[in-house]
């Protein structure tokens, strides 16, 4: 009798784990024939990528120089990640949809299967894009297949196009700014990207123009074993404003897929760039098999006085994430912001954070990092705040909160501070909490299901970051978090 009663007893503590474990919802594969280079990398492959893309000589030389530097470099090993060695000769460095030769002139010409894929992902294209007021430059397997709202933007003098188009049509801007924020030899992955990047997005907002809509790019990795090397360059000229959204999800795969993107932002005097990312790449299954390797270099340069760059990111995907969106606060009175939610579950590993490099006077930076770990995952915040000798009255505030779900996950915080100016003020606050069984019980005792309770508690925890996202994106981010954390409480 005693036993049966104990079985009947409700024991939410054992359920916390079971709540996060749902299958990856974006796990489907689009069946489009791809034209793919054979695996391996050498100078010939780099030159071939440049040739396929019809690039001018300066780009080919730029790539080859990057390749030569990359060959001399070693993959970094300082982050708290366990990575099996990656065989860079086993990766194919170019893959494009077959229809590339006669690229679609409008959405009607786009492969319906591709549109269907976007549909499943809930990506606003076609009318949905119009309704949402979002311009979409969709990158699919390294080549842009659909670009919208260009005319509206063009009337303001804004350039928003694929990187390839920018190389062809705006070579002067590319020459001036490419690699000016993230140099080719900046790090191992940036060098590799510089050599073989296939496509990406380019934005230029002219002097004094406020971009009338949110710019949005959705990335998608599809062809098996094809590394994705995206390149994004956003230039905000003096006094301009632009808000850029980037969202990603990938189909289920067993092979590990390497992703090494580079994003460069340049804000000139008085300009503001807001850059938001929702990242939901395949994280691998419950046993840590498969999943995307995400090694990203994102950096913004507040080049002019009173410029501002704000990074917001919601990271729920990838098997391994290595990512530190940074701001170089060069201009006097410039401002850098970093708002981040990083969720890890199962066997995911994330080492993410930011760097705020204060060079100008009266520069300010604000960092809000929210890490959520569940399952057997590892989640590390790594942040550097550097105040240069001339950065008088620089100020930084860092808030770093970790939320643990279950007792087999780990959260680490590595704040680095290097202050060379005595008038600087640098503050760091960190907290670590466990999602409380008392919180869960309290919510459930009011009629909320365990899933809804977890979702509510986690959304509350992330609120300061979600507040920075545009409305539609905030909703999407919250949904993403719910899917990522289902089964996490136990």
């Amino acid at each position, binding site marked *: 009798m005693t036993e049966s*009663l*104990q079985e009947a007893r409700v024991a939410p*503590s054992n359920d916390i784990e079971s709540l996060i474990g749902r299958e990856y919802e974006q796990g489907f594969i689009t069946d489009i024939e791809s034209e793919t280079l054979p695996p391996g990398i050498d100078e010939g492959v780099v030159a071939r990528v440049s040739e396929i893309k019809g690039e001018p000589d300066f780009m080919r030389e730029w790539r080859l120089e990057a390749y030569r530097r990359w060959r001399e470099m070693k993959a970094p090993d300082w982050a708290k990640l366990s990575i099996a060695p990656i065989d860079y000769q086993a990766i194919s460095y170019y893959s494009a949809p077959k229809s590339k030769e006669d690229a679609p002139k409008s959405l009607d010409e786009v492969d319906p299967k591709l549109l269907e894929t976007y549909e499943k992902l809930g990506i606003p294209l076609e009318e949905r894009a119009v309704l949402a007021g979002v311009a979409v430059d969709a990158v699919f397997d390294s080549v842009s297949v659909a670009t919208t709202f260009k005319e509206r933007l063009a009337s303001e003098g804004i350039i928003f196009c694929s990187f390839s188009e920018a190389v062809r049509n705006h070579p002067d801007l590319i020459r001036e700014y490419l690699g000016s924020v993230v140099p080719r030899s900046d790090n191992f992955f940036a060098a590799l990207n510089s050599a073989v990047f296939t496509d990406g997005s380019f934005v230029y907002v002219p002097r004094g123009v406020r971009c009338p809509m949110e710019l949005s790019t959705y990335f998608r990795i599809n062809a098996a074993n094809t590394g994705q090397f995206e390149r994004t360059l956003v230039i905000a000229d003096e006094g301009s404003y632009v808000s850029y959204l980037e969202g990603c999800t990938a189909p289920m795969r067993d092979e590990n897929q390497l992703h090494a993107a580079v994003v460069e932002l340049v804000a000139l005097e008085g300009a503001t760039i807001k850059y938001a990312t929702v990242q939901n790449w395949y994280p691998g299954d419950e046993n840590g098999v498969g999943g995307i390797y995400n090694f990203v270099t994102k950096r913004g340069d507040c080049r002019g006085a009173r410029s501002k760059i704000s990074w917001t990111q919601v990271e729920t995907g990838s098997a391994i994430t290595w990512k530190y969106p940074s701001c170089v606060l060069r201009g006097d009175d410039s401002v850098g912001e970093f708002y981040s939610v990083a969720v890890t579950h199962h066997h995911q590993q994330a080492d993410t954070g930011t760097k705020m490099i204060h060079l100008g006077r009266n520069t300010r930076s604000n960092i809000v990092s929210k890490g959520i770990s569940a399952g057997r995952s590892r989640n590390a915040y790594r942040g550097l705040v550097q105040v240069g000798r001339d950065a008088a009255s620089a100020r930084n505030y860092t808030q770093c909160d970790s939320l643990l779900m279950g007792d087999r996950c780990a959260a680490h915080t590595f704040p680095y501070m290097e202050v060379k100016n005595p008038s600087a003020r640098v503050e760091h606050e960190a907290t670590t909490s466990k999602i409380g069984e008392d919180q869960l019980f*309290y919510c459930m*005792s009011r*009629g909320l*299901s365990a899933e809804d309770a977890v979702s*509510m508690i986690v*959304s509350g925890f992330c609120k300061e970051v979600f507040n920075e996202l545009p409305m539609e994106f905030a909703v999407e981010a919250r949904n993403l978090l719910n899917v990522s954390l289902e089964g996490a409480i136990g």
Partner: protein
Amino acid sequence: MPSPLLEISDLHVAVDGDAILKGVSLSVQPGEVHAVMGPNGSGKSSLCHVLAGGNGYDVTRGSVAYRGEDLLALEPDERAKQGIFLAFQYPVEIPGVNNAYFLKAAVNAVRRARGDEELDAIDFMQLMREKVKLVDMDEGLLRRPLNEGFSGGEKKRNEILQMMLLEPRLAILDETDSGLDIDALRIVADGVNALRSPDRAIVVVTHHERFLEYVVPDHVHVLFEGRIARSGGRTLARELEERGYGHLRAEAAA
């Protein structure tokens, strides 16, 4: 006699292997108000939490029937949906979660379970404003994160507000009167009395006879060392107020 709303039979409960409740039996009819009194550590709060489905309580013997069904088999949220409400002695803080948003989610979860239509934001705000006045609570608290930074009295009023919105069939108040000044005590008591009806029952756990002057119970029980040592009417509370629990100890020893 109508069938009881709540029937606790020979309930034994342990926490981390220590016996806390050692054979509690209690029968609550619809329309009744029961007061449970007793010294600190006698198991009052544990009893409340076991009824609401709290974590970490091992039922080692006995049973609890709610409307004739096995209550202990239900998850906490299922209990809430079936009309059980626990006003917490220490309401939990949930940072970043807007109080009004939480209340609306809770009300609609319970309404869905009852087969009622969900309230939209406008109807809900109207209902909430009405109830907020009854508990004399500052409306600003609705826009703040749930219980975060609330004073003790504000938390208790917020519990009563939740109770009024959820309209439970069985309300359990775990020392809701503790730490309240006399005015707040009256407001909380008015809230509880407003809930009284022939198809509802209320279990009030309290230390203070004074609260029972406002919320007049039909039955009073004394929980002592994990058992109900005495049961009686309204006068038992007064007797305890005058004589304390000391004589119970003597009786238990004898």
